[in-house]
């Protein structure tokens, strides 16, 4: 306890530097990202005028990139809260420097995911309608409830461990004290406050796990509750949750890989951190491969007409390039790099994680568009093939840019590594 109140420049100095020191790089990066977002918004304004005609969706492929992005980003959001909560509860000490990075990913990714609904629906001006007139049998309404609950929980869970660091900034930062002071809630580091904070964090860590699991389950049910062949599957709930945690860990590895270089956090994000996360990534990769195998084997064995059409398109038809790229990126690449101690380096982990992120995006795409292309109504199979249009590609890049921008701005105001928690790390025996 005592160590916490004592200033420790070895830890505080490098972690506060990104906030206190602003170089030319910050405005340059912000402007570049704003430019990409601007292009996306320009295309979106055209889509608003003309309608979804601007996008590539068809009958029967009524959903395309937007819903793919929606599922992908909400999957990424499991990086954070879930991983950080599990590691906190299991008392994994190596998680201390990475929990906040993960929690910020959660909040930002959830926002980026949800915003796709605005791009996808036919009348975005009425996006509030499910709140005014919810029809509770609809999985889309379950989505609204689950995502809002998760977003609220994640913001609280991000905020609570931030309080002691906010107090530090209140005392140390030359700027924005008006912001830090109210947010720090009068934190003075006393024994009582400390005990209360620890208790609140523990409660949130427990509560957030079922919420996180429910979110991606419900997202998968948006697809699985319909009768569409290869969507209508009870495996989808756990399959999507596993995929979400999988892509979430990959996103976390990529994020700390980048932050390590940009902010010189080598001391905090050690090779051991990457190695441990890589082991988690391997586990999830195996689980993901098992689910994918089980899903396709049962469908193939059943040999139902429409399901076989989906399988054929995945194995050797229109969707084969995406499907096999997905298998390579999600399983083959991580499994050739990460199980080997020699290759399980920082670079190795980041390379494998980038592959996993691309692979998991492809997985969402293959599931959403691939299955929707082959509905039960066989005459529809050749009717409308999905071809993504400029607006959808522009918005995908704009979302990635907005994700990074939100991260950059957060890093400008708040420490990306939990200073007080790192200070409290018990000495290694």
């Amino acid at each position, binding site marked *: 306890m005592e160590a916490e109140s004592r200033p420790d420049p070895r830890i505080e100095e490098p972690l506060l530097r990104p906030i206190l020191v602003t170089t030319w790089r910050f405005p340059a990066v912000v402007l570049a990202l704003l430019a990409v977002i601007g292009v996306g918004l320009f295309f979106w304004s055209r889509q608003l005028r003309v*309608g*979804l005609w601007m996008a590539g969706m068809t009958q*029967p492929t009524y959903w395309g990139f937007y819903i793919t992005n929606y599922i992908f980003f909400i999957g990424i959001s499991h990086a954070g809260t879930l991983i950080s909560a599990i590691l906190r509860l299991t008392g994994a000490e190596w998680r201390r420097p990475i929990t906040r990075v993960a929690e910020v990913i959660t909040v930002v990714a959830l926002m980026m995911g949800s915003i796709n609904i605005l791009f996808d*629906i036919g009348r975005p001006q009425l996006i509030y*309608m499910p709140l005014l007139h*919810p029809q509770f049998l609809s999985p889309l309404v379950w989505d609204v409830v689950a995502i809002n609950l998760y977003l609220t929980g994640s913001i609280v869970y991000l905020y609570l461990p931030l309080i002691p660091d906010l107090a530090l900034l209140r005392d140390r930062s030359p700027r924005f004290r008006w912001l830090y002071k109210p947010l720090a809630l009068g934190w003075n580091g006393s024994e009582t406050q400390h005990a209360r904070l620890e208790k609140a964090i523990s409660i949130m860590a427990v509560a957030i796990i079922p919420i996180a699991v429910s979110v991606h389950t419900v997202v998968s049910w948006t697809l699985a509750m319909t*009768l569409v062949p290869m969507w209508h599957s009870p495996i989808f709930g756990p399959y999507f949750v596993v995929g979400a945690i999988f892509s979430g860990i990959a996103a976390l590895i990529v994020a700390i890989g980048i932050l390590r270089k940009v902010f010189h956090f080598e001391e905090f994000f050690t090779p051991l951190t990457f190695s441990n996360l890589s082991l988690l990534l391997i586990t999830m990769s195996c689980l993901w491969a098992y689910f994918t195998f089980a899903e396709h084997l049962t469908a193939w064995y059943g040999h139902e007409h429409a399901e076989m059409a989906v399988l054929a398109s995945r194995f050797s038809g229109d969707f084969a390039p995406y499907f096999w790229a997905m298998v390579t990126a999600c399983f083959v690449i991580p499994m050739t790099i990460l199980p080997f101690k020699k290759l399980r380096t920082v670079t190795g982990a980041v390379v494998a994680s980038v592959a996993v992120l691309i692979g998991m995006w492809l997985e969402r795409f293959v599931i959403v568009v691939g299955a929707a292309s082959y509905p039960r*109504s066989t*005459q529809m199979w050749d009717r409308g093939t999905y071809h993504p249009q400029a607006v959808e590609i522009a918005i995908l890049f704009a979302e990635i840019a907005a994700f990074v921008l939100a991260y950059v701005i957060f890093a400008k105001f708040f420490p990306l590594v939990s200073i007080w928690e790192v200070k409290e790390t018990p000495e290694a025996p």
Partner: protein
Amino acid sequence: MTEWAMAIDLDRCTGCEACVVACRGENNVAVSGPDAVERGRVTEWLRVERYLEGTFPEVRMRFKPVLCVHCDNAPCVKVCPVSATYETGDGLNAQIHPRCIGTRACAHACPYTVRSFNWRQPRWDGTLEQTINPDVAVRWKGIMEKCTFCIQRIRRVEDTAREEDRDVSDLEMQPACAQSCPTQAITFGDRSDPESKVAALFRSPRAQLPLEELGTGPRVAYLTEGEWSGSGEPAGSSD
């Protein structure tokens, strides 16, 4: 309680598509245009599917008019987050256009793929505008639309019957598709009345319900001799 239903005799269907044209005219379904056809974005409430049987020179073309089957247990109704699609209670599944926000969840939920989305603003160029039926609202971009069994005709007949204080007879009205069919392949009526023609056709051994195994409870039956159910390979070989 009335239960509107339709029986389509596939052995009588010549594939002339008069029903398709009549449906467009009656319900203000705008012509989508060749660019929409090319990209698979046609707005239509009724389509005639074609199936090729046999191999040359022994070939035979089969036709199947496909429209909303107004399920008893409609998958589209359940998934709508804002209740824009609902069951009227007398056998129809209707769409409230002003309430629809265009999620297209219903379109995926529908195993018959008979819901149409307005990918852009529907247009009636030139004199076509004068063909708009004043009894039916025109729709706009960003919303779903679908076959209503010509609900405007049903409601008008019901109103007249109520004014005259008598029951509705299903002989009083027909949807546009049934009315325009030159071979009278389409029969529309009240299935809850065991005496009605449509109820008799539903009982016929020739009657088949589309994708009956899904348990959606279609209120459109297809009548045909033999085994062909109209759900095989499109323009493919024997089935």
